[in-house]
């Protein structure tokens, strides 16, 4: 009798699993699915936004496969992301280590200050940094000239490397505080008895951090990496406002989202914009899968 009772319990609990996730999927099917399907279906059409759409089968896809600008934009976006992500992860891990293992006066204040850049809209940020660097008498050039740096004043936005690097810097600036908070939230979730045990055993703070904490917050790190890939590959706001959607200089900062926005809303070619979205979706899915597999380990939290 006990076994049957337990079995019934387990079955009931399975139902509860469905019930708990049900609200999410109901709302997703209503609000989330329609725009996605819309984009997918639009990729089979040619539409300029005003005249009726005409079906063109796989024409858009064929064009995408041989589109040099598309591949260039993907490469740009990936490069901007990597140059942003690595410092972001490192600085966040470093800060988390510092804050977890040391008593820092004003820690909460520091952490709040580092989170601030995340609060401001990307559009405002693009505007601000444009003012800092644009022209011979811009803020930064002013300083460089005053310090008698040779070669000043510089034409910063003539350099593709600089402009692309600036976008990466802005992304880092906006997200490193958030990443720190996330990692620290993950660390919080771990039972502190584990640290205490390690420290008592004579491990240094650094060893404890690297060998014990980091592996234990693997799910948090996976979350951070994958959401960063997804957000990073969809980057639009910052480079768009910095370069007025032109992607200058010479398309160095043309991200894929900017390319698709221009194709849709500027060239009035919505079907092709939709197909670029699909292409980007596949690339993001691929990169995320690769990242996930690289970071996953047997017996990890996602194995069930």
């Amino acid at each position, binding site marked *: 009798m006990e076994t049957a009772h337990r079995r019934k319990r387990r079955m009931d609990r399975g139902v509860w699993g469905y019930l708990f996730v049900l609200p999410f999927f109901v709302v997703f099917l209503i609000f989330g699915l*329609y725009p996605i399907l819309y984009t997918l*279906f639009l990729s089979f059409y040619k539409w300029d936004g005003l005249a009726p759409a005409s079906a063109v089968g796989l024409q858009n896809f064929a064009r995408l496969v041989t589109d040099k*600008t598309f591949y260039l934009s993907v490469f740009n976006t990936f490069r901007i992301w990597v140059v942003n992500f690595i410092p972001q992860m490192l600085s966040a891990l470093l800060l988390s280590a510092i804050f977890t293992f040391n008593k820092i006066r004003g820690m909460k204040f520091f952490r709040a200050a580092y989170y601030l850049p995340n609060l401001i809209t990307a559009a405002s940020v693009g505007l601000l940094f444009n003012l800092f660097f*644009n022209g011979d008498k811009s803020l930064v050039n002013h300083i460089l000239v005053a310090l008698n740096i040779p070669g000043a004043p510089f034409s910063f936005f003539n350099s593709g490397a600089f402009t692309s690097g600036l976008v990466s810097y802005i992304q880092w600036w906006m997200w490193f505080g958030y990443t720190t908070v996330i990692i620290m939230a993950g660390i919080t979730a771990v039972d502190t008895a584990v640290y205490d045990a390690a420290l008592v055993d004579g491990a240094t703070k650094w060893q404890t951090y690297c060998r014990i904490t980091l592996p234990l917050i693997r799910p948090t790190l996976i979350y951070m990496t994958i959401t960063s890939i997804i957000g990073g590959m969809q980057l639009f706001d910052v480079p768009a406002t910095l370069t007025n959607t032109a992607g*200058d*200089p*010479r398309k160095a900062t043309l991200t894929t989202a900017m390319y698709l926005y221009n194709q849709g809303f500027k060239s009035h*070619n919505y079907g092709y914009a939709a197909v670029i979205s699909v292409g980007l979706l596949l690339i993001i899915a691929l990169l995320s899968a690769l990242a996930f597999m690289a970071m996953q380990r047997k017996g990890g939290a996602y194995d069930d």
Partner: protein
Amino acid sequence: MKKFLALLLATAMTLSLAACGAPSSGTSTVSSTAASASSATPEELSGTIEIWSSGEELGRFVEGFNKVYPNVKVNITVVPNADFIAKLTPVLSSGQGVPDIFTGESDYVKYLVESGYWDDLRADPYDVEQYTGDIWDYVTSVGTDTSGAVRALSWQASPGSVMYRRDMAKEVLGTDDPTEVGAMLSSNDAMLDVAAKLKEKGIKMFASWQDIMNMQFSNRKQPWVVDNKLVIDDSMLSFMDMAKKIAENGYDLNVDPWAPEWSAAVESTDTFCYVLPSWGYQFVIKPAADTTKGQWAMCQGPVPYVKGGTWLGIYKDSPNKQLAWAFMKYCCCDSEAQQAYAKEYGEYVSLKSADKALAEGAGEDVLGGQNPFAFYNEQMTKIPSDLMTTYDGQINTAFLSATKAYASGQVSKDEAIKTFKEDVATAYPDLTVE
């Protein structure tokens, strides 16, 4: 669960296909009362009209409009220009919630004009042909589609000029008289000569070489696209050379238009001129001129030109066409209204009679007594016809990028042109690009 998902997918599919494939719906309501209603008095007209505008100027007409039409309520929603098309597109294609009037900036006005979503103003209940005689030609021609239907008008015209500093002209060129200075700027080479002279005295001629692009567009003999083929007019190629010479020799401030330094140069001691259309005076020079009041003047450069502007039209399925036309008429065809507006805001307007009347008035302090309306009136008689196409938006962007790369020395001219052609082909794959 699977079956449910499949059903939902099918429903969503059908919905979106229907949305995509449906041609723009909406029966054109021909108001049978149109003929008789056009004789209704202004007080009798009542209702509300919705307007979407990318700028704030239209709002300035509302007060005056309501004095004549007290019972017509005008709701203006300002939509940021950068996303105007993004906001308009879903609304137009669904046919719901479309404003009665919407504007179109010069970058995409041709796209809207050709789309047919603005009503033909020659037909009932409008009577635009009564007024087109008094409107500067190019304003009407930009608003006219290839079949000859007049679909959009504007309250403004934007002829261009070279706005220069009198004090520097006197010192370096020996005169500050607009006609004489204009004679010295009669060609690209002549401008470069003047630039060299100015440089000897430590003065940079231009705020930015990008300003000149405005002027060069009017120097073309052909538009960007002829018979669906990309055409690069010679004047654009010589513009590229001009840009490079200016950048190489340091004849400008090396800054983008609208950057702080560019705007600040109005008051500087080392920048000679801005090459901008009429709104440039209103929005750049006049607000900033403080110690330089009276030291500015306008003259003609190598060619007279027009650039920019905002047009507006009436939605073809609007239920309030009469009211909308009353407002549009007020802003775009009413000489008294335009004169009052121009007197207060200094903008150059689209009616010849209004501009002629304004030219009689006093000159501007900032311009040392020169009357900008008189100056622009003369320019308007000389400008070439409009060469705008629906492709201009992206082509101009691509061309500016290419010229920037060439002028800053990053690529050779051939490479720049090649990149330009590739970019145009990417932006508009239907065009033939060789």
